[in-house]
C-alpha cells in the first residue's frame, strides 16, 4: 500500500519534468533505446551458446563443404613446378620443360609421400593414373634428361593429351570439374565439356530418382497421415494423446530394430509373403519382392517419416473448431464440399509444412535406403556416402551434397513464394 503511494508522485514528477529537458522528446527515445539495448544484449547472451554451436557445427561445415566441392589441392600442392609450368604456358603442348617440371615434382612427391595423393586426384578424372604416379615417383630420382623421352620410355601413358588436360585442370586447385562429374559430365582432351561415357552416367539418374521417390514418399505419408491426424484432432484429448504415442513410436525405436522388423515382414520368405501364400492370394513362386528394391525404400521410409507429416497436420487441425464444418453443412454444403472447401484449405499450411519436411528429410535419407533399398532403391545420398567412405573422393561427395543442398534451398524458395514460410506450422 505505502509503495503505491510513494510511486504515484514520482511518476507524476517525471511526466512534468520530461518536457523541461528537451522540447522534441529525444531524451526519452535515447533512454528507451538504452533500456532496450540492455534487454537485447541479454537476449543475445541467452542465445549466444546456441548461435556459436550452430555456427561451428553447421554454418562453417557447410562453407567447408562448398569450398571442398570446388577445390582439391592434393595435386597442386604436391606439384609446384608443374603448377608453374601450366601457369606460364596456358595453351602449349607439353614440352621438355614440362617433363622436367614433372620429374622434379615426382622426386619431391617421393620424398614427401604425396605421389599417391596427387595420383588419386588425377585418377578421379582419368582412371589408371594413380599407379602411373606412384610407380613413376619410385624411380623419378634416377631419371636423366631428356626427361620427355625418359618418361615416355617409362610409360607411354605420360604422353596422353588427356592426362595433361586433367593435370592442367588440377593444377589450379580450384575447379568446377567435380560439379561436372556430379552432373554426369566430363572434359575431353581439349578441355571442352562433354557428356560422361554412358556406362558411367549415374548421378543425374539418381538425383531424379531421389526426387521422384521423395515425392512419392511425401504423397504416401500424406495419404496415410491425413486421416490419422484428423482422427487425432477430433478425438478427446485423452484418447488422442494415447494414439499420439503410437504415432510417435517409430521415433522411440532404434533405426536398426525398425529396419530389421521391416526385413522380417517384407522379405521373400517374410511374414507378409508367407501369409499371402498360406491364404492362397499368391503362389509359392509368386512371392512379392517388397524389400531390397524401390518398394522397400518407399515402405520403410514412409513408416519412418510418417510422424513428420502427422505432427504438423495435427497441429493445424487441432485448433480448427468443429463449428466450421458444421457451419458449412448448415449453409447447405454436402459433407464432401464442407471438407474440401472449408476444412481442407485450413489444413494447407500443415500439409505444406509436413510435405516440405518429409520431402527434405527423404531427399537426404541414407541409412534406410542403404539397408532395404537393394539396387533400385538407392538414393543420391548413398552415392555421397560411397564417395565419403569408399572412394574417398570428398570433393565429388561435396559437389553432390552441394547440389542437393541447392535443390532443397530452391524448394524452400518455392514454398515461400507459394505458401509463405511464415504460415508454416510444424507442431
Amino acid at each position, binding site marked *: 500500500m505505502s509503495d503505491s503511494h510513494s510511486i504515484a508522485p514520482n511518476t507524476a514528477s517525471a511526466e512534468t519534468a520530461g518536457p523541461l529537458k528537451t522540447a522534441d522528446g529525444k531524451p526519452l527515445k535515447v533512454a528507451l533505446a538504452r533500456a532496450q539495448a540492455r534487454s537485447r544484449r541479454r537476449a543475445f547472451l541467452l542465445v549466444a551458446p546456441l548461435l556459436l554451436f550452430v555456427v561451428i557445427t553447421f554454418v562453417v561445415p557447410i562453407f567447408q563443404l562448398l569450398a571442398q566441392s570446388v577445390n582439391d589441392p592434393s595435386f597442386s600442392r604436391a606439384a609446384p613446378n608443374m603448377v608453374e609450368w601450366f601457369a606460364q604456358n596456358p595453351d602449349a603442348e607439353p614440352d621438355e620443360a614440362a617433363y622436367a617440371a614433372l620429374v622434379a615434382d615426382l622426386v619431391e612427391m617421393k620424398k614427401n609421400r604425396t605421389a599417391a595423393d596427387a595420383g588419386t586426384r588425377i585418377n*578421379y578424372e582419368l582412371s589408371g593414373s*594413380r599407379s602411373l604416379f606412384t610407380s613413376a615417383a619410385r624411380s623419378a630420382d634416377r631419371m636423366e634428361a631428356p626427361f620427355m623421352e625418359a618418361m615416355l620410355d617409362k610409360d607411354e601413358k605420360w604422353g596422353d593429351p588427356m592426362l595433361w588436360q586433367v593435370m592442367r585442370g588440377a593444377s589450379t586447385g580450384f575447379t568446377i570439374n567435380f560439379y561436372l562429374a556430379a552432373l554426369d559430365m566430363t572434359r575431353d582432351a581439349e578441355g571442352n565439356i562433354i557428356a560422361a561415357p554412358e556406362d558411367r552416367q549415374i548421378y543425374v539418374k539418381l538425383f531424379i530418382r531421389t526426387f521422384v521417390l521423395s515425392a512419392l514418399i511425401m504423397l504416401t505419408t500424406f495419404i496415410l497421415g491425413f486421416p490419422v491426424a484428423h482422427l487425432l484432432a477430433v478425438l478427446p484429448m485423452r484418447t488422442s494423446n494415447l494414439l499420439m504415442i503410437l504415432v510417435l513410436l517409430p521415433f522411440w525405436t532404434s533405426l536398426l530394430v525398425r529396419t530389421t522388423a521391416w526385413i522380417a515382414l517384407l522379405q521373400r520368405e517374410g511374414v507378409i509373403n508367407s501369409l499371402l501364400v498360406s491364404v492362397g492370394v499368391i503362389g509359392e513362386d509368386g512371392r512379392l519382392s517388397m524389400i531390397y528394391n524401390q518398394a522397400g525404400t518407399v515402405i520403410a521410409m514412409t513408416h519412418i517419416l510418417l510422424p513428420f507429416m502427422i505432427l504438423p497436420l495435427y497441429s493445424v487441425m487441432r485448433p480448427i473448431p468443429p463449428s466450421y464444418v458444421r457451419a458449412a453443412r448448415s449453409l447447405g454444403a454436402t459433407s464432401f464440399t464442407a471438407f474440401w472447401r472449408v476444412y481442407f484449405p485450413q489444413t494447407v499450411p500443415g500439409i505444406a509444412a509436413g510435405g516440405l519436411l518429409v520431402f527434405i528429410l527423404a531427399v537426404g535419407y541414407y541409412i534406410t535406403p542403404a539397408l532395404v533399398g537393394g539396387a533400385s532403391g538407392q538414393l543420391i545420398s548413398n552415392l555421397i556416402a560411397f564417395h565419403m567412405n569408399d572412394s574417398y573422393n570428398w570433393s565429388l561427395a561435396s559437389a553432390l551434397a552441394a547440389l542437393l543442398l541447392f535443390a532443397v534451398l530452391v524448394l524452400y524458395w518455392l514454398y515461400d513464394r507459394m505458401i509463405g514460410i511464415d504460415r508454416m506450422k510444424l507442431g
Partner: protein
Amino acid sequence: MKKTLILTTALASMGLAASAQELTVMSWGGAYGVSQVEAYNKPFAAANGVTVNMVDADNPATPIKAMVEAGDYSADVFDIELSDAVRLCDEGLLEVIDHSALPDGVDGVPALDDFVAGSLVSECAVPNIVWSTVYAYDTTKFPNGGPTTAADFFDLDAFPGQRGLRKGAKANLELALMADGVPAAEVYDLLATDEGVARAFAKLDTIKGSVVWWEAGAQPPQLLADGEVVMSTAYNGRIFNAAVGEGKPFQIVWDGQIMDFDMFVIPRGNPDVALAMEYVAFATGSQPLADQAMYISYGPARLSSGPLVGLYQDGKTEMGPHMPTAADNLGNALVNDFEFWADRGTELEEMFNAWLAG
C-alpha cells in the same frame, strides 16, 4: 581450410582420448572380432597389465582419414584390408612399422621370412590373417547335389534361386570373369581392358534380376538362413561360423575364391603409438595367430603358425581343411590385386553403380 575442418571436427566429435594404459582396437566385429579378443586382446592385456578395448565398424579403414586429419583418435590399432592399408600408407596416414623388428617365429625363422609371401607389401602394416571371398549355398535347397564351380553361381537353370552378392565392383567382377572361364592368373590383366570389364558386366547381367545385394559381412549367412537367397558370396569365416559353429546347412564352394589379407595398422600421430606397436608385434606372433584360427576359419599370416593350428573351439573340428590356404581349396584361387583396385577402383565402382542403377 583443412585447419578449420580439423577444429570443427574435433569440437564436434570431442571423443574421450584413450589414456596411456588403455588401448582400443577397431575391427570388423562378429565372430572375427571375438577371435581377436580371445587370441590377442586378452593375453596381451594380461601380460602387460593394460586394458584393451574392442570396437566394431563396417569397415575400420573408413574413419582413419578423418581421424588423422582431426588429430582425434578414437582407436589406436585398426584391422583393415590390404588394399586400404597400401592406399592409406601411400597417403601418409599411417605409422611406419619396422617389419624386421617383429619377433621371430616359434620355429626360429625371422619375421621377414615367416609371413606368407606377398603379404609384407606395405611398410605401414603387419598382416594378420588370410581370408577369402567365396560363395556358399544352402544344401537343403539342392538335395540332388549343389553347385561346385564358380560358373555354377551364374547358372540359373541348373541352380535356380536368388543370389547374394556384395554391393560393389570388387570381387564380383573377378568372380564373373572366372565363372566365364578366365583362368585366375589372367583375370586382372583382362580386367584392365575395356573388353574385360564389359565381359565381366555382361556375365553379371545374366543374374542381375536374381540378386540380393548385401553390404555388411554379417548379412550373407543371415540371407541364407532366412531363405532369401539360395547362394551368396561371403567371407569364408562367416560361413564357417554359421555352418560349423551354429550347425547351419551351408556349404562353401572354394572354386574361384579370392584371397586377401587383413592387416594391423596404426594411424599416424597417435599418442599411444608405442603401446600400439607392442600390441601389433604381440598379436602377429606365431602363437596368437594360431590361436585366433581356433575361433574362425581365417588362415594365420605366418607360416610358423600353421602347425600350431589345432581344433575348433568345439574340440572336434580340425581347422586345417577350412582354411583358404588349404591345398584342396587352392585349385582355382585368385589373390586380390590391391594395386589394380587402387588404380581402377574409382572408375569400376562408378561403372558398377551406374550398371546397378540402370
